[in-house]
């Protein structure tokens, strides 16, 4: 039982991170029908920028908390600029192209960003600075740390903030209107370019935040780390119903928990043949099962055949 609870907690933490990243996929898809496969790389850039900024500030003697905050701010700003630039440079010129074209471009951007990161930060694993003190808690035999608690809390607050933005502000209303009928939204005076840019910028800010969380949690980073994380978050978005915000949040957390439980029990289930390092298979089994039996996801409406 304590393993079960422990894995639920671990899954909730990992799932919160998936959810933040999945929101970026789903917002962009909802508005323009594009799967931005470079989104995982935005998370990676977020982690690496934090390492550079917070790491060097700590080195020159700045208090850790302050350096961490500066790293977070820098990473959010850099990623927002990156998301905006990606859309401007790579996707906007393809707005009226066949929809396979921007999809392939997205994969291309993902590869380019990985390689740029490799040139800038090198090909070795980097250590993420200790930004938070290690404090352990225990409930019912399960352990969790202050970092885990903070990840879940900050994700929850961020998602509440996003829900407020989308459902209670004029920009959010314009985003929803554009997602539902871009032509009529234009008739109402909505500049679709601005709404699309906003989706990229907001999604990238969430990705940066997720990047800082991943770094703080695993304390290690690498130029290829965004690839698998991006695929898993994409899976989470599909699981929840791509294009649907609540779906991305629920899908992320659900995927995190499925994965953690899978990793916790896979040894027992296979008589020790497969170990917990096989946990990645669960995400993709989920993806295949969802695509086979409920392609519109848990919360999704029928979306037709957009790529």
């Amino acid at each position, binding site marked *: 039982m304590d393993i079960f609870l422990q894995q639920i907690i671990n899954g909730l933490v990992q799932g919160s991170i998936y959810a933040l990243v999945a929101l970026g996929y789903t917002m962009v898809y909802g508005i323009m029908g594009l799967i931005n496969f470079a989104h995982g790389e935005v998370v990676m850039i977020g982690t690496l920028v934090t390492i550079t900024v917070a790491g060097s500030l700590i080195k020159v003697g700045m208090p850790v908390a302050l350096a961490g905050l500066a790293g977070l701010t820098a990473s959010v700003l850099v990623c927002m600029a990156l998301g905006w630039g990606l859309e401007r440079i790579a996707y906007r010129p393809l707005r009226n192209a066949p929809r396979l074209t921007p999809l392939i471009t997205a994969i291309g951007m993902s590869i380019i960003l990985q390689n740029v990161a490799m040139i800038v930060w090198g090909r070795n694993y980097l250590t993420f600075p200790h930004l938070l003190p290690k404090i352990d808690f225990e409930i019912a035999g399960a352990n969790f740390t202050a970092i885990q608690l903070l990840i879940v809390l900050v994700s929850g607050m961020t998602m509440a903030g996003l829900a407020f933005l989308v459902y209670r502000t004029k920009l959010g209303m*314009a985003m929803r*209107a554009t997602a539902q009928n871009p032509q009529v939204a234009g*008739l*109402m*005076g909505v500049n679709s370019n601005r709404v699309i840019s906003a989706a990229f910028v907001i999604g990238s800010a969430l990705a940066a935040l997720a990047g800082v969380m991943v770094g703080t949690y695993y304390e290690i980073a690498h130029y290829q780390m965004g690839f698998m994380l991006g695929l898993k978050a994409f899976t989470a978005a599909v699981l929840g119903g791509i294009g649907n915000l609540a779906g991305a949040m629920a899908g992320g957390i659900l995927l995190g928990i499925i994965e953690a439980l899978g990793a916790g029990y896979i040894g027992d289930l296979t008589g020790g043949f497969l170990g917990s390092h096989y946990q990645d298979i669960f995400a993709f089994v989920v993806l295949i099962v969802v695509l086979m039996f409920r392609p519109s996801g848990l919360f999704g409406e029928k979306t037709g055949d957009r790529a």
Partner: protein
Amino acid sequence: MLEVTGLRVAYGGIQAVRSITFHVNEGEMVALIGANGAGKTSTLKAIARVLDAAGGDVHFCGEKITRIAPHAPIRKGIALVPEGRGVFPRLTVAENLAMGAFVRDDKAAIAEDFEMVYGHFPRLRERADQLGGTLSGGEQQMLAIGRALMSRPRLLLLDEPSMGLAPIMVQKIFEVVRAVAASGMTVLLIEQNAKLALETSQRGYVMESGEITLNGDAKDLLNDPKVRAAYLGE
């Protein structure tokens, strides 16, 4: 107020509108009638910048608007009630109306206009919190017209407001259209129901295969034997 000169619209190589010229004066209600496929909707879409014109020019209040940004016409005072209504299905009725006032910031006046629209269409007030997609066709048409009015337009473009509606609903919609026109708003109306359109308007243009073939006072057109034969089923 609206001057269309030599306007052409093409889809690929196919010419939907072949160099048409017409105008709408301030405070006037003008009908553009014609059979299905005559190019009426393409004309309105080009004016509202949903489509690019292939040639010719559109002037509004003396300003050339042929190639302004697609989100700009409403800021100039042009509101289109699109063919098929274009209600946002997953926004509430109130949010749909608020989208009509998207370009405005005057909160107090927007609140007044909500009342004005609800006054015209009490049904919309009852359904204010319902999603647009759950409304009946007639209610969606009310919503689309109400949403256009929320921008306080100077020129209202109506694309087939009677399409697919029960006669009683058509009557209700046209009552409001008449009231809005009587209050001094300039209206350009497209209709397949030529009789209804001409009875409601002061002037009319008849479109056939992308060209304007007849124009004149609505009353004269109603009595024109060619119009009667082609569009009034006589």
